[in-house]
């Protein structure tokens, strides 16, 4: 992003080809508009970190998705019921958020319809897309699976899509963490780690 803040559609893109959009980062070089004047080149270690993190995401993600199907987690906890799929149900949740209400105690036990849909969207749309668009940028991977990049309209299209999907994931993360704080940070964190909601004496 910093090293080439220009985005394109299609197979190739460089300073001589038409740009889809640019990020307002001042350029440090004339011919290749790198933003190294703003932040010196960090591409070495940050790429290492990126691909190491990608492995963590892919491996834990696979484990999560497989176990989620086997345990019925997606069906039981995430798939919204008939009642949850009405505009009314969504509006109730959105209205609650707009009034900055703290979620009721009942909500500690199950996800509301809006939550269910956003989790399903992140798990089954955004994560697969970010992995796919990422792999589509790998010259070696697409040599074995050319369809991965051809279906997206080219390598630069994959890069542009990767940028937007990762922005969407970042937005999800920020909203998610904000909601955890609103719902009560300590209680929610304890619930996430132990799998037990509310006070410790319940459910024994």
């Amino acid at each position, binding site marked *: 992003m910093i*090293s080439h803040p220009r985005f394109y559609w299609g*197979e*190739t893109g*460089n300073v001589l080809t038409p740009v889809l959009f640019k990020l307002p980062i001042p350029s440090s070089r004339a011919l290749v508009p790198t933003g190294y004047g703003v932040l010196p080149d960090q591409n070495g270690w940050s790429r290492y970190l990126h691909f190491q993190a*990608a492995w963590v995401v892919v491996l834990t993600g696979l484990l999560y998705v497989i176990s989620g199907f086997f345990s019925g987690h997606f069906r039981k906890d995430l798939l919204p019921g008939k009642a949850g799929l009405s505009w009314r149900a969504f509006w109730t949740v959105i209205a609650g958020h707009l009034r900055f209400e703290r979620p009721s105690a009942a909500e500690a036990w199950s996800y509301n319809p809006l939550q269910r849909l956003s989790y399903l969207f992140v798990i089954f749309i955004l994560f697969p897309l970010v992995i796919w668009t990422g792999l589509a940028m790998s*010259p*070696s991977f697409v040599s074995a699976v050319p369809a991965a990049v051809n279906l997206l309209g080219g390598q630069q299209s994959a890069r542009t899509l990767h940028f937007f999907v990762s922005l969407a994931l970042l937005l999800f993360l920020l909203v998610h963490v904000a909601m955890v704080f609103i719902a009560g940070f300590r209680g929610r964190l304890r619930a996430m780690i132990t799998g037990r909601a509310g006070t410790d004496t319940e459910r024994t």
Partner: protein
Amino acid sequence: MSERSPGERPPAERLLDQSPRDRSRRKLITTGLAAAAGVAGLGVAARIAQRYGLVPPDHGGIYGLGETLTYASQRLLTSHSLAREFPRNQISKPPFANEMAPLKEEFKRLQAGGFADWRLSVNGMVARPASFSLDQLKSYPSRSQITMLQCEEGWSYVAEWIGVPLSHILQAVEVHPLARYVVYFSIDPDWWESIDMADALHPQTFLAYGMNGDELPVGNGGPLRLRLPRQLGYKSVKFITRMTVTDSLKGFGEGLGSSSSEAGYAWYAGI
């Protein structure tokens, strides 16, 4: 606590399952054992990976595991796949050339002579070490490919690359069967790289001396550049003058396999 009556179970299990705390302790022990088995398994996997050439030279440090997983997967899945080639009308116009460091005196002298004195020397684990002039390289069967050059920074272009497959030169000098890497050097002493034999013998790995039907421009690495379309641009070293075939990268620089790795970039850039 439990729906079943205690009488249904053998006493020992009942003891173990007395309270949530015991249950979580049992879980902890199983998890611990599984983790220990996992670590032992990783140790064995590392030995096997080393043996089959699945460990990159930059496998040390905190990012080593991810890098090794990437390189090993690529070697297992994509050793022989061909980079995408494009139709002629997809060649980027006008051709793009990255900015480069000012050329040194030695290069300017060779350039003034029309690169007639440019040499590529090949040595190391080969039966017949040799030095090739550009004319000699051009006398070998020439091949061309229309492939993309992708920079790690994010930009890219497509060009027709003309040259001789590196495998042809490696056959001519007769590489030792135990050789594992080819190390190659630019006339610019700060730029050198290496590749494994899978990439060195790959049919699209070229010593390129031409581009888009013409001589290879200096801006794109002329008179001689390595072309490796399945990896990012920094592996396609410009102004190449020297190659060494070896079974170990330890003796080269810091032993990380390339100037890019020493500068903190991944050695394997196929991603």
